[in-house]
C-alpha cells in the first residue's frame, strides 16, 4: 500500500474507533428501581413512619401468621379441627407428629420473625426521628403500636416454640444477630410483659378494634399474665376491659362474625377484598369456593350442635352431608369468599374467661366471681348457666367453655399446654411435644440455634 492510502485508511479506522468508543452510554448502569427505595430513606417523617407501621400490621396478616397458618396450627393441634385435604403437613398437627421439616411449622417461624423484624425497624427508625419531623404524640403512638406488635410476635414465638432467640433491634445486615442464643419460655414472656408495659405507657386511650390502643395492650397483658400464672394481674387487666361496657360487649354469637368490628372485638385483624385473607379458602367446600383442607371434627360438631353446650355457637359450622358424602361438615367462622374475613385476635369473651380462670385459680379463689364470668359467656350462647359447683368443677367448666367458645380460633392447644392438660385431654403425653420443633432449615442457617428436646 502506498503511504497516502495508509493515511486514508488510518483515518477511516480512527473514525470507526471513535464511534466504537463513544457509542456506549454509561447511564444504563445507573438505573434506579421504580418500585422500591433505599433503607436510609425509608422512614424519614410522619408519613413514612405511619406507612412502615402499616407495613408491620401487614406482616401480622401473612398467610403463615394470623392470615391462616398460625391460627390453624392452634386449632388443628387442639384436635377439634381435622385435616381433610391435600397438604399433609397439616395432618401432623392433628397427630402431634410434627417434625422439624414440617412446611407449615417452618413458615410460621419465618413469618413471626419477619413481623418481629418489621416492628423493631419501626421502633429503631422512629425513635431516631427528631421532634421537628415527628411530633411527640405521633411518635409515642407509633412506637406504642410497634411495641405491641413486637410483644405479640414474641408471645406467639414463646408459646409455640418455647425456646427462641429474643431480638429487639432492627435488622440492617445478615450478621447482626450472630451469637444471639435462644432464651427460655419464661424469659420470652418476661420480655413480652416489658414490651406490653412500654406500649401501654405510649399508646393513646382509645377504642380502635383494628389497631393497638391502650385497651389492646391491656387485653394481651391479661392473657400473658394468665399464661405466666400471675392470676392477680390477669384479673386486674381483664377487669379493666370488662368494665368498659360501652366500648366492649358480649354481642350475639353469630352477630360478631357475620359483621365486622362489633363491640365483641378488642383486636381483630382487618382484611379487605383487595388485601385478602385465605382463611375461607381452607375451610369452605369446593362447591363454595374453598378446598376444605380441614373440617370441624365429629366431636366438636357434637358439642356445638348440642343446645345445652354449643347453643347459638352452632352457627360456627354447617352440615352439608349427602348420602355419598356423609359427615360433611364445613366451618363457617371464615365464610367470605371475597377474602375479607377478619382474624379475631382478642375478643371481650376471652377477657371474661381469663378473669374467670384467674379468679378460680388465684391464691384466695373467688368462686362466685369466676362462676359469674363463666355464666356471662354461657348466657350469651343461650345455654344453661351453672350454679352450685365446686372450684374444681368451675376450672374444668372454664376449660370446656373455652373449647366451644373459641372452637376455630386456635386457643385450645395453647390453653391445654399452659395448664399442662394436653396429656390428659388430648393424649399428648410426651410433654416435649407441647412445643413445636425449631425448623430444620433454620438450624442449618443459624448455628446459634439448638433444637428443642425430642425433635
Amino acid at each position, binding site marked *: 500500500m502506498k503511504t497516502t492510502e495508509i493515511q486514508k485508511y488510518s483515518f477511516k479506522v480512527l473514525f470507526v474507533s471513535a464511534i466504537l468508543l463513544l457509542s456506549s452510554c454509561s447511564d444504563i*448502569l445507573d438505573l434506579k428501581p421504580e418500585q422500591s427505595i433505599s433503607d436510609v430513606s425509608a422512614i424519614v417523617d410522619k408519613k413514612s413512619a405511619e406507612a412502615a407501621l*402499616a407495613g408491620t400490621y401487614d406482616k401480622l396478616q401473612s398467610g403463615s401468621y394470623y392470615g391462616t397458618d398460625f391460627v390453624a396450627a392452634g386449632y388443628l393441634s387442639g384436635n377439634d379441627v381435622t385435616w381433610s385435604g391435600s397438604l399433609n403437613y397439616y395432618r401432623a398437627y392433628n397427630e402431634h407428629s410434627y417434625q422439624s421439616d414440617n412446611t407449615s411449622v417452618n413458615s410460621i417461624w419465618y413469618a413471626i420473625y419477619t413481623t418481629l423484624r418489621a416492628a423493631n425497624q419501626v421502633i429503631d427508625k422512629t425513635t431516631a426521628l427528631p421532634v421537628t419531623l415527628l411530633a411527640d404524640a405521633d411518635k409515642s403512638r407509633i412506637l406504642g403500636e410497634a411495641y405491641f406488635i413486637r410483644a405479640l410476635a414474641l408471645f406467639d414465638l414463646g408459646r409455640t416454640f418455647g425456646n427462641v432467640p429474643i431480638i429487639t433491634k432492627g435488622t440492617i445486615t445478615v450478621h447482626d444477630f450472630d451469637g444471639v442464643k435462644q432464651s427460655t419460655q419464661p424469659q420470652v414472656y418476661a420480655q413480652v410483659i416489658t414490651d406490653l408495659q412500654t406500649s401501654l405507657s405510649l399508646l393513646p386511650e382509645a377504642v380502635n378494634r383494628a389497631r393497638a390502643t391502650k385497651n389492646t395492650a391491656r387485653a394481651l397483658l391479661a392473657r400473658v399474665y394468665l399464661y405466666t400464672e400471675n392470676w392477680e394481674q390477669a384479673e386486674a387487666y381483664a377487669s379493666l376491659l370488662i368494665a368498659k361496657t360501652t366500648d366492649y360487649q358480649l354481642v350475639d354469637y353469630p352477630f360478631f362474625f357475620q359483621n365486622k368490628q362489633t363491640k365483641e372485638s378488642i383486636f381483630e385483624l382487618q382484611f379487605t377484598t383487595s388485601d385478602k385473607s385465605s382463611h375461607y379458602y381452607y375451610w369452605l367446600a369446593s362447591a363454595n369456593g*374453598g378446598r376444605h383442607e380441614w373440617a370441624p371434627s365429629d366431636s366438636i360438631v357434637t358439642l356445638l350442635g348440642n343446645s345445652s353446650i354449643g347453643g347459638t355457637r352452632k352457627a360456627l359450622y354447617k352440615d352439608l352431608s349427602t348420602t355419598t358424602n356423609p359427615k360433611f361438615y364445613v366451618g363457617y367462622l371464615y365464610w367470605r369468599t371475597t377474602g375479607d374475613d377478619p382474624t379475631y385476635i382478642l375478643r371481650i369473651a376471652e377477657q371474661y374467661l381469663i378473669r374467670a380462670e384467674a379468679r378460680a385459680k388465684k391464691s384466695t379463689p373467688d368462686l362466685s366471681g369466676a362462676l359469674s364470668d363463666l355464666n356471662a359467656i354461657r348466657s350469651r350462647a343461650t345455654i344453661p348457666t351453672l350454679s352450685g359447683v365446686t372450684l374444681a368443677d368451675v376450672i374444668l367448666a372454664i376449660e370446656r367453655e373455652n373449647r366451644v367458645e373459641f372452637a376455630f380460633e386456635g386457643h385450645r392447644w395453647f390453653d391445654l399446654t399452659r395448664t399442662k392438660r394436653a396429656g390428659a385431654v388430648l393424649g399428648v403425653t410426651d410433654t416435649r411435644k407441647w412445643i413445636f420443633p425449631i425448623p430444620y432449615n433454620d438450624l442449618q442457617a443459624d448455628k446459634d440455634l439448638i433444637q428443642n428436646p425430642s425433635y
Partner: protein
Amino acid sequence: MAKLPLIFGNGNPFPCYSLRKIGVILLFAVFTTLTSFAQQIEVKGTILDEGSRSSVIGATIKLKGQQGGTMADVKGDFSLKVQKLPVTLLVSAIGYKNQEIDVYEAEPTTIYLHEDQNRLNEVVVTGYVQTKKNAKSSAITEIKSEQFKNISGTSFNEQIQGLATGLLVSSTSGTPGSSVFVRLRGTTSVNAGNDPLYVIDGVPISSKTLQTISIGGQTTNPLSDINPADIETVDVLKDANATAVYGSRGANGVILITTKRGVNNTKTKVNLDVEYGFAKAAKLWDLATGPETAQILNEAWINDGKPNATRPYRPVSEGGLGNPEDQKTYDRQSLIFRTAAVKTYNLSINGGDSKTSFFIGGGYTSQEAIVKTQDFARYNFRFNLDHKINKQLSIGTSNSIGYTSRSLSRTANSPKGILQASVHSATLLPIYNADGSYAKYGIFDNVVALIDNNNHHAYGLRSINNVYAKWNILENLSFKSSVSTDLNNYHEKRYFNSQLSDGQPNGVATDATSIEQTWVAEQLLNYFTTINDKHFVSVFLGNTTQKRTYQNENINGSSFPSDQFQTISSASITSATTSASSSGLLSYFGGANYSFDNKYSVDANIRADASSRFGKANQWGYFPSVGAAWRISEEKFIKNNARFINELKLKGSIGLTGNQDIGDFQSTNSWSGGANYGDAAGISNSQLGNPNLKWETTRQWNVGLETSFLHDRLSVELNYYNKYTYDLLLDAPVAGKTGFASTIQNIGEMSNKGIEFDIHSTNIRKRNFEWTSTFEISHNTNLVEKLPISFSQYSRDWVRLQQGYAMYSFWLYKQLSVDPKTGNAVYQDVNKDGKITTDDRQIVGNAWPKFTGSFSNTIRYKDFDLSALVYFSVGNQVFNMNRFFQEHGGVRGTNWGLLESQMRRWQKPGDITDIPRASTVQNPDGSYNNDFQSSRFLEDGSFLRLRNLTLGYTLPKAIISKAKLTKFRVYASATNLFTLTKYSGADPEGNTAADQSNGTVQGLDFAIPPQPRQILFGVNITF
C-alpha cells in the same frame, strides 16, 4: 459395473460391520428391483452437502473429456444436455472436494459433495468470530433445519432434543407451547439462571416466560413465539472459547439461530409447506376401580384398629356406604383427553438480484392439546433483506412478528385444575349430584364443570428486529453497526364463572398484561488477512450496549352481575397491582486468532461487561479465554503413512464466563410498597442489601478430538470438558431471627464435568441410494462442591441443595423394605436413634441422567427418504408425586382416588411387596406407611423414545415440471411413536415445578399431560 458391489462404495473397506449387515438386510429387497431405463440426453440432478443435506449453491458441473457444463442453482439443482450416456461429471464447489460421478442413466441424480477441510481460504463466521474453518479450537455443534423440521413441536428448542451432544432438552408437559427445559453441559448456577443465551440473527433474545397467571406450575415457552420454519441453522456454542465473547451471559452456553435469507443472483422461489395431523396420549394413568378403592379404605379402617362394624363400606342397611363390590367406577380420564388436531402452513418467497436479496415468510400453526380446553396457535411473519449500496457499503435487516394465541387450563400442581379433577378424584364418586348438578369433592372441582366453563386465554405479540449497516473499509477490514430490539407483549385473561369453585360466589376474573423490551446497540470491527499463504490472522473488536425493561399490570375483579358479564368493568370488586424493573449491560469485547500453515492455530478472546444489577464496586467483570488447535492430519507423518485419515485435530480451550441473570436491583437494601393494612398504605423492608454482590464466574476447559476417515465417510468427535463455577449467586438462607428467610449472596461452588461423543457415518453412498447414521452420547456429572448451608428448593422439601451432591437431588426417607410380618414400611434409621425423624432424611437420588444420546438414520432411495431418530436418557430419577398422593393407603380418605398400584400393598403376614399396608396411623418408630416422604415414590425415569420417524417421497422432476413446479414432496411423520421405560407414570420427562424461577427443580411428576404420540402428513412444494 455390477450393481451389488456398488452398495459398499468405491472399494473402500466399510468400517462398521454390524451396520454393514443391517444395510445388506434392509436394502437387499430394494436393490433387487433396480433396473436400468432407456437413455436420454438430458442429465439432471441435485447437488447437496453430504453432511447437512442442504443444497450446494453455485456448484460447477463439467463434462469430463467433453465440452459443456453448467452451474447448480439455489436449490442445488442442475440440468445438462449430453450427446450420449454414460458420461462422467466433474463437480466442484468452493469449500468442497471435487468429485467425479459416472452417469449411466438419464434419471435425476443426487450428488453429495464432501466438505474440503483442507481449503485454505475459507473463512467462516460464527457469532463475532472469523476463523479458518478448520482452525476452530472451540466445541460447537451446528444443527441444520433439515435435521429437525419434521419433528413436531411449537419451538425449535424442543425439536433439537438429541441433535447436539451436551445439550439436555426435555419437554416438561404435553401441552403445545409449554415450557421446555434446556441445559447445556449441566447447570452452572442455582438462582442466576441456567438457560443458554439465545441469539437470533445477532439479537440476544429473552427466554423467560411472561406468564403471570399460575396454571399449576406450568409455564409457556417464549421461544415458541419464533417459527421454526424460518430457521436455517442452529449453532450450539459449548466451550469457554466459543462463549467467553458473550461474557456475562455465556456461562450456560450460547445458541445462535440463523434465519433463512435470500441469495444474490437467484431466481425467485416460492416454498409452500402444508401439514396436517393428530395427536393422542400414548399412556395415561391406571386408576383403582370403585370396588378396589372401597376395599382399601375398609382395610385401612381395620388396620388402624377401628371396629369392623363401623367400617365405611358396609351394607347400607347397616348404616354404611354399601359394600365395596357394590361401588361403581366413574371414568373421568376419558372425559378430558382427546385426539387433538394439528395443522401448519408455511409460505415463503426468496430470491435476489446482484444487489439485493430477500426472504419473506409467513406461517400459521394451530395445535390442539390432548387435554380439552387447551390449544395453541401462532401467526408469523418474517422479512429479511440485504442490499449492497456499493462495493463498500451494505445494509440489511431481519424482522419477525409472531402472534400467539393460547387457550389454557390448570394442570399439574393445581387442586382446582382439570388434571387433578380428572385423575385424582376417587373413581367411586359420581360425577353429578342426584339433582344433576356438578358434584365436587374434597379439594377438587368438578371435571365436567372445568371443561364446560373454561375461559382462560393468553395472547402474545412478539417482534424481534435487527437493522445493520456494514462498511467494508478494506477488502478484509469491515465495520458493522447494528441496532436490535426484542419487543414482547403478553396479555392474559381468565374468567371463572359461578359454576366453578374458584368463581364463587359470583365470578372471579383476572386480566394481566406484561411487556418486556430489550434494546441492543452493537458495533463490530473485523479484520483478517493471509500472509504468504501460510499465516492467517484475524482480529475483532466490538461493543454492545443493552437495556431491558419489564412492566406488568395485573387487574382482578370479582362479584359480577351474572355469568354473562365477564369483563372486569362489570365487576363490583376490583383490585390491581403493577410491577416494573429494568437492567442495563455495557460490554466491550475483542479477540484474535492466528493459524499457521493450516496446521497450528491459537486464539484468544476477552469481554468486559458492566451490569447494573451489581453493587457499584463490582459492576465490571472480565471474561478471557484462550484456545489452540493442532491438525495432526496435516503433518507429513500422517499424510504419508495414514492416508485413510482425512482429519485428525486436537483442540483445547480454557476461559471464564459469567452469569448475572438474577433479579434487578438485588444489591440494594430496599423498602417496597404494597404492604398495606386496611386503608393505610404500608411499606416494608423487602430485601436486605448486599453491596458486595458480584458476578458468578464459571471457569471451563475443554479438550477435543475431531477426526474424519475414509474420504470423510466416517467422522468422530470427542470432547471432554470441566466447568467450575464459583461465587454462585445464591438465594441462600439466612438466620430466621433476622426476619429474612434468604438473601442473594455470592456463596458456594459447583462443578460440571462431562464427555461428549458423536460418530457420523455414511454407510452407503450411491447414485440412487444413500444411508447415513449418526450416534451421539453425552455424559455430565454435576456436583455442588461447596455450600455452607443445605436447603430445599421447593415446597415440601423434596428437592435439596447440599454440598457433595448434585443439584436436583431428592431428600427423602429411604425405604428399605416392607416388613413381611407387620406390613409396615422400614426406613433407614440414619442416626440409629431408633426413631425416624428429620435427621434420617437423606439424599437418595437425583434427576440428572447419567447419559443422554440419540441414534439417527437417514435413508434415501431414489425419490424416497426415510429418517428415524431415537433419543434416550439413562439414569434420571423421577419423584412420582401421583403415587405419593394416590397410593395414600386410606390417609386421604374417600375423596382422593387411588392408583391401581395401591392394590399391590401388603395384606397379610408373609406378603412380600414394596407397598406397605393400608393404614393412616403413625408407626412405632415415628414414621408413616403412607403419605410420607418415602423413597418408594422415587423411580428410574430412564427412557428410550422414537422421537421421529419420517417417510417422504419427492415426485420426479419429469412429472412436476409440467406443473411448473421445481419440487413436490409428500411425507408422513410420526413423533414419539413409542417410548420404552420402566417409569410407571405417564411421561418420565414431566415436571410439575416448571414455573420455579431458573428451573431449580426437576423430576417432579404430578398430574402433567404426557407428551402425545403425533402423526403428521405434509407436503412441501417449491415453484
